[in-house]
């Protein structure tokens, strides 16, 4: 088993109220896309608001900053779900619904020990790291990925 999981955070500001006409197409596809993620090979976990089915009600970083936080077995698994499924068609229209004009970084990847769930505070720190230092092993992007650490969190070789 892999000793690390890939964590993914992205944030964005919606262009209108979630129950308004501007966001209607996005909201109507949410359930389908979340089900697709849950069933995707390599999917581990995603953040869900208390009593909800998704994270759309959460605003941990500001009054109108929405979050996506999830865990995957590998960069490839996350890439395949994000870009090689019906999710791509929704992503193609992202600018109709969201902007990130004043956000210094809006998407970050990092490795966490398998079995742990990153906190929203930690996730935000990773985003801040990416914004200030660019891609590093501790906070990176698809276009500049880093491999999982070679040793397990307990110091054993990772793939023993």
């Amino acid at each position, binding site marked *: 088993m892999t000793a690390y999981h890939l964590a993914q955070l992205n944030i964005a500001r919606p262009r209108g109220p979630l129950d308004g006409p501007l966001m209607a197409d996005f909201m109507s596809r949410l359930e389908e896309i979340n089900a697709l993620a849950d069933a995707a090979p390599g999917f581990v976990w995603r953040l869900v608001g208390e009593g909800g089915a998704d994270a759309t009600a959460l605003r941990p970083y500001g009054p109108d900053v929405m979050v996506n936080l999830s865990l995957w077995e590998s960069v490839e698994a996350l890439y395949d779900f994000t870009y*090689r499924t019906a999710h791509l068609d929704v*992503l193609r*229209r*992202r600018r109709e619904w969201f902007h990130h004009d004043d956000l210094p970084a809006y998407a970050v990847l990092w490795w966490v020990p398998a079995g742990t769930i990153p906190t929203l505070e930690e996730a935000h720190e990773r985003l801040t790291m990416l914004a200030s230092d660019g891609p590093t092993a501790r906070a990176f992007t698809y276009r500049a990925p880093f491999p999982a650490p070679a040793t397990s969190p307990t110091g054993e070789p990772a793939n023993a």
Partner: protein
Amino acid sequence: MSVESIGVLREPARRAVYEYAVDRGELVSRDEVAQALGMGRTLAAFHLDRLADAGLLEVSYARRSGRSGPGAGRPAKLYRRSDTEHEVSLPPRRYQAAAGLLAEALERSGADERLFEVARERGRAAGDRSGSSRGARRAEPDRSREAENAELVETLAGQGYEPARRDGSIVLRNCPYHGLARDFPPLVCGMNLASVQGLIEGLGCRGAVARMAPEAGGCCVVIDTPVGDAAP
């Protein structure tokens, strides 16, 4: 590397072998090539191996009979087009590097929709410019949807898509923007969809609808042609 690779295609028979393998879009055997092109098996094998040495084809081994174990025969040597890209530009030009910079800048500024607008306009213009379509539309304003779809396939082929008809759809076996699309999928695949939509509009192809279908492999766009054969 690339100049040598492309040079290998200068020999007409070898080029025919390459084009046959590309057209098939799947693994092909020496026997199939020999039979399809009416050449000896030894010559077909020679050309296939030269193409593989040059990095234009990829080699794998498999038993084609479906049997395995003793008595199933030796695995056949099979060939298909390599994913390696070959580009030669004289004098040297670095348009791919420029495309990467432009794409990243567009993504950072969130201007995806502007790119889609431009792609759609250009696609429409390219479809409209297509000489045969103009002539055909003038000559026979009520030509069949099948004729329109056939022309769409021809136009797409001219733009590098490698279209193939399949069960009421046109699938595109090649992504003309592959490397860039891998790095910027929503941006570049969205641009690609808009281009194809524009092309369909420009050609006046009434029965064709382009949509995203990234799970299909090859290009992320599929064109549905549901009335291709039925309606006039």
